């Protein structure tokens, strides 16, 4: 049934009109144990947005890493405007005007935003760097994107979302003929997303071809011209965006039907578990924030990038120095408690940046899942590990979250982005927890997995756990939360509950009051 949809595939279509901007023939990439990509024929035309869609581990990032020269194909050919090309490095690809926003960023933490933006294409006067030019260009691009970033800020000090913006800004420099975006909006909010899409439109008009990877159906509909669906490294279909509907796409992607993404969660709010009482952080990234989370409910936290969402979770978990105010958990004052004690108390924070804070990349999935639970008797007695129990628990979790590939000993770095996310969430489930704080839990997670994560959240909630859901993905907040708080510049702007939680209401609080 897939083949009927493949319109772009017959040679006649190709022969007609100008040679397409970029085509691949039988592109294949093998990693130890996995064939990430199996003989993909892909076509990108001038001025189109070609969406790559597929489950976690389907091979999307691999495909674009080949197109961008980050890795070399095991087999197959790449043509640009009919000419065969072989990219030995990103350097080569850039020379052909291929520019990519990578899922795992390509930023150097020790360098500033501007230095990162033009890394590999510095401006020079004679043999020396032209720093004035650099500053001007960087400013110009940032303004065009309307990203609130200081060009001289060190990337290391930026939150993941801020870094995402730098990564995007990096791609919007001159001389781009093929623009590749791998889940650029994963941790962005509407505002930045809108700007990005506007720029993509202008790029299209200038004839730039765009490869866009996303897990968000809404985005596909907004900007997609054509869609190529990948499954297990194979191309299952290539179709026009306007003749594809969500259910069809999801079916193509997963091979099964998913009726609804967001589960109905029966909130039964009980005793207050977590309570922040006029909390101000030493670094002033939160200022007198008060909120509470009850057992048996999902509480959302929305807000623009950099509004301090994450810091709420971090503060509750004992990661941030608190200058003023109290934090109570289960009625007990836990202000200034260490992470380990908070965990023993029954609170767990799942961070937003899996690479930086979530996972030990070079260790296996099993070790990562068990790591936070090793102090519980079910995993270790008197410091001696109970490895059989550990293996069992880990494989249960892996099955539950549909880890792909189902190999617990494989280094986490060898999993696809979304599957890494699954491993990180598994960590939270490995031990007894009463209050979960999820910070951007579905960053880079495919629809199917997304659904299962939402179901999981629902189950946890209905089982009586409290859940604080910090997210930049508004629909998530709207559909899952019983109550929602909106953050603005490190302050709590509003608390909404039940029916009040609508897009308008929330967005209304996102921006400056006096702005409207």
């Amino acid at each position, binding site marked *: 049934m897939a083949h009927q949809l493949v319109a772009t595939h017959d040679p006649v279509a190709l022969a007609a009109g100008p040679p397409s901007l970029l085509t691949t023939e039988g592109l294949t990439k093998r*990693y*130890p144990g996995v064939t990430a990509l199996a003989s993909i024929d892909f076509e990108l035309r001038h001025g189109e947005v070609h969406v790559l869609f597929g489950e976690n581990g389907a091979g999307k990032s691999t495909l674009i890493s080949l197109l961008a020269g980050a890795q070399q194909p095991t087999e197959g050919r790449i043509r640009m405007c009919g000419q065969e090309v072989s990219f030995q490095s990103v350097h080569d690809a850039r020379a052909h005007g291929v520019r990519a926003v990578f899922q795992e960023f390509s930023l150097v933490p020790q360098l500033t935003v501007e230095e990162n933006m033009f890394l590999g294409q510095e401006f020079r006067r004679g043999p020396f760097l032209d720093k004035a030019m650099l500053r001007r260009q960087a400013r110009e691009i940032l303004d065009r994107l309307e990203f609130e970033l200081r060009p001289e800020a060190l990337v290391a000090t930026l939150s993941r979302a801020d870094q995402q913006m730098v990564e995007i800004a990096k791609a919007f420099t001159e001389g781009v003929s093929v623009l590749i975006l791998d889940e650029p909006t994963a941790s962005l909010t509407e505002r930045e997303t809108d700007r990005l899409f506007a720029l993509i439109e202008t790029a299209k008009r200038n004839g730039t071809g765009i490869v866009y990877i996303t897990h968000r159906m809404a985005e596909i509909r907004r900007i997609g011209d054509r869609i190529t669906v990948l499954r297990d490294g194979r191309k299952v279909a290539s179709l026009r965006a306007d003749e594809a509907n969500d259910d069809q796409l999801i079916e193509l992607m997963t091979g099964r039907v998913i009726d609804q993404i967001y589960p109905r969660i029966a909130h039964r709010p009980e005793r207050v578990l977590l309570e922040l009482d006029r909390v101000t952080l030493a670094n002033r990234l939160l200022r007198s924030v008060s909120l509470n989370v009850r057992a048996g409910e999902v509480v959302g936290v929305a807000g623009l990038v950099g509004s301090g969402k994450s810091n709420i979770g971090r503060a509750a*978990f004992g990661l941030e120095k608190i200058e003023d105010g109290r934090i109570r958990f289960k009625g007990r004052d836990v202000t200034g408690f260490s992470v380990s004690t908070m965990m023993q108390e029954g609170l767990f924070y799942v961070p937003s940046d899996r690479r930086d804070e979530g996972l*030990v990349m070079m260790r296996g999935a099993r070790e990562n899942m068990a*790591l*936070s639970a*090793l102090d519980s008797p079910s995993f270790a007695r008197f*410091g001696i590990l109970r490895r059989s129990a550990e293996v069992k628990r880990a494989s249960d979790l892996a099955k539950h979250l549909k880890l792909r590939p189902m190999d617990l000993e494989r280094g986490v770095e060898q999993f696809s982005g979304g599957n890494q996310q699954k491993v990180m969430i598994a960590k939270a489930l490995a031990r007894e927890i009463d209050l979960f704080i999820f910070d951007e839990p579905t960053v880079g997670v495919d629809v199917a997995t997304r659904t299962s994560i939402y179901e999981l959240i629902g189950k946890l909630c209905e089982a009586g756990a409290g859940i604080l859901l910090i997210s930049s993905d508004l629909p998530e907040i709207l559909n899952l939360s019983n109550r929602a708080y909106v953050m603005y510049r490190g302050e709590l702007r509003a608390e909404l509950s039940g029916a009040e939680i609508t897009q308008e209401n929330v967005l209304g609080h996102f921006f400056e009051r006096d702005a409207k």
Partner: protein
Amino acid sequence: MTSIELTHLDRRTTATAAREVMKRLFVGLGVLPFLMLAAMITFSLMSDNFLTSRNLINVARQSSYLTIVSLGQMLALISGGIDLSVGTTLAVTSVVSAMAMVASLAAMPDMVGLAILIGVFAGLAAGVAMGAINGLGISLFGVNPFMMTLGMSSVGFGLALYLTSGIPVQGMPEAFGAILGFGTLFGVPVPIYATAVLIALVYLLLNWTRLGRYIYAVGGNIKASRLSGIEPKRTLFKTYVLCSALTTIAGLMLTARLATGEANIGGSMPLESIAACVIGGVSLSGGSGRVGGVVLGAVFIGLVQNGMNLAHVDSYLQIVAIGAILILAVIADRVRLRLASEMTN
């Protein structure tokens, strides 16, 4: 005609099959066993005395000290650090234990056993104290391990010299050396047994205890381990204490062998132990490394040195050779990894 072709075919296939098998072994086992084998063959061709049980036991005993120290070094490396003070720790242990024994023997000449015990404990205390200071500096004050241990190695050496005024400490009880240094059991030297036990213990620690898991985690990603409820400071502190403890044991065994307290031993230990770890597959950026590899690495170094001595290789040449061999070992391992990534269904 056809038959010939057939045999041809056969040969080719068997040949390729064999190569395939070799390749798989190479990738699976790592490069060291093969280098070891190569060295064995080369040296046994160069000298008839090499492949004698006596010499091999000899090598094993000689390597035991480096092996133990390398185990300690491995812990430091896995935790994402390094210990440049292992050499000095050896020296301090040696000096302190010797002085303590001599002193307590003078105090009570008839209680040799007790004197030895006191000496051993004094040495252990001194050595572990150095580890504890390293640990404190690194975990509490967040001093970079390289600098902390480099500084401590200087401090310790100075103290050892100061204690002995540079002159070896003599007059230790014969028994000490007789047992720990030269004793044999079923023809196998005691140090080898000791080493075997320690290897087993470190293996258990790393693979079957929480602390071991934490050491890997902290070395792999300290932020992530903090967010997993681990307290990296504690883990790091314990790591350096353990590292020094192992080194100290090596120091005691060495002292027993030398029968004197020497401030001037262990100079080459830090770099040699790190080398042993690295060619044993330990990552200098932390988070990964296996006991087996390190042991092989240490023994390999010992084996090469011994072999070159037996083969009467010029000393100057030996210096060149050992360097070259270390580099080649690492290169070979890189090749192995490439093969591994190629060898995919």
